[in-house]
């Protein structure tokens, strides 16, 4: 072991063990705040313990990883174990997204909330069918309507963040600096 587990307070399981047990039953990323409430410990202590667990799994050559994605923590199988895991996860493999779908997803990610019209303007081609695909795949969702034109607006979902393995859209790489005043040209 890379570190000693903290002393169990009053005979109960250690904070580390309690968190591991809870993480075993979650089926979507769980926030630090929720975990802290469940184990009744300060959030900072919980975060530190989670980080310790994540590092520990990595250094101990575990087949799973603990990762912070989409605003929460969740257990994942290690990428290089995929060939073994895939024999059990029958419908886990998602069809790949088309180039068009990836483009629409990128525009929504950076411009959200954004209307289909604006996405179309950026791509120079109608994006309605593609947007529908992304809605069906749970990668984008509706986000109210534009107060001006009344057009439906779209944003990315937490599932999108999870599929990308990032905590929030602020972790997306910066758009190429070449884009001069992107807001002015997208509506052309």
């Amino acid at each position, binding site marked *: 072991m890379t570190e000693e587990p903290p002393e169990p307070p009053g005979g109960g399981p250690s904070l580390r063990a309690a968190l591991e047990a809870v993480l075993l039953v979650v089926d979507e990323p769980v926030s630090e705040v929720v975990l802290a409430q469940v184990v009744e410990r300060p959030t900072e202590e919980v975060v530190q313990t989670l980080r310790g667990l994540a590092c520990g799994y990595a250094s101990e050559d575990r087949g799973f990883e603990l990762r912070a994605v989409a605003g929460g923590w969740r257990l994942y*199988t290690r990428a290089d174990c*995929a060939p073994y*895991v895939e024999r059990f*996860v029958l419908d*886990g493999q998602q069809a790949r997204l088309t180039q068009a779908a990836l483009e629409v997803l990128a525009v929504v*990610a950076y411009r959200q909330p954004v209307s289909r019209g604006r996405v179309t303007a950026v791509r120079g*081609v109608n994006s309605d069918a*593609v947007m529908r695909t992304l809605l069906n795949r749970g990668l984008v969702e509706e986000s109210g309507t534009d107060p001006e034109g009344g057009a439906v607006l779209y944003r990315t979902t937490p599932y999108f963040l999870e599929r990308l393995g990032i905590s929030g859209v602020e972790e*997306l790489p910066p758009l190429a600096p070449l884009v001069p005043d992107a807001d002015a040209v997208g509506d*052309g």
Partner: protein
Amino acid sequence: MSTESAARPAFEVHLENFSGPFDLLLGLIAKSKLDVTEVALSQVTDEFIGHIQRLGGAWDLGQASEFLVIAATLLDLKAARLLPRGEVDDEEDLALLEARDLLFARLLQYRAYKEVAAWVAGRLEAEGRRYPRAVALEERYASLLPEVILGIGPAAFAALAARAFAPRTAPEVDTEHVHAPRVDMAQQQAILVERVRRTGAASFAALAGDAGSVVVVVARFLLLLDLYRDGQVAFEQASPLGELTVRWVRQ
């Protein structure tokens, strides 16, 4: 524009795997190993137009109009380069410069999104090899869950199912109110020609009197403008907003 598109599955323009006009344009520029400059644009213009010509009638004009807009802009730019450059003094030159700058800006913007789209694809690919834990609860916890309250009876449940199974209307902007019912222009033209020709002259009020709807009135007016352009009819109007007389002039 197509009015029947609602009935058809939505259509995605694909030109040899290009996802849109900007994609095609960037693809051609990359193939020529050029940077995105005016020179690049004028060099790939012919290829761009060749690509969309090859598609012939196989596409929906409504969906593909952006390709044509861009092709037209490119042609303009290319033509301008072939002509001796004078001062930029007339409005056409200015419009051309604006069109060029807008095309550059949009192209660069699109390229930036394309780059991040590639990053997204890479992440999805890499992350797709990690599988999250998502298993049913252990028996001991599942049994703790409170009794479910459905809150609805069989009839409401069936209604809910019916709603779920009802064909979904695609989340599209409703353009029904924009699209007028179709008017058979050829038929309307035949009516107009027949009437004006037979009587030699007729007032617009008389020609449009039996139109039945505003759309048909508009259609007949536009058709008369067409006939005027072709030199088949002449107009007489004594005073502004006065009666418009249409005269058959074609020999």
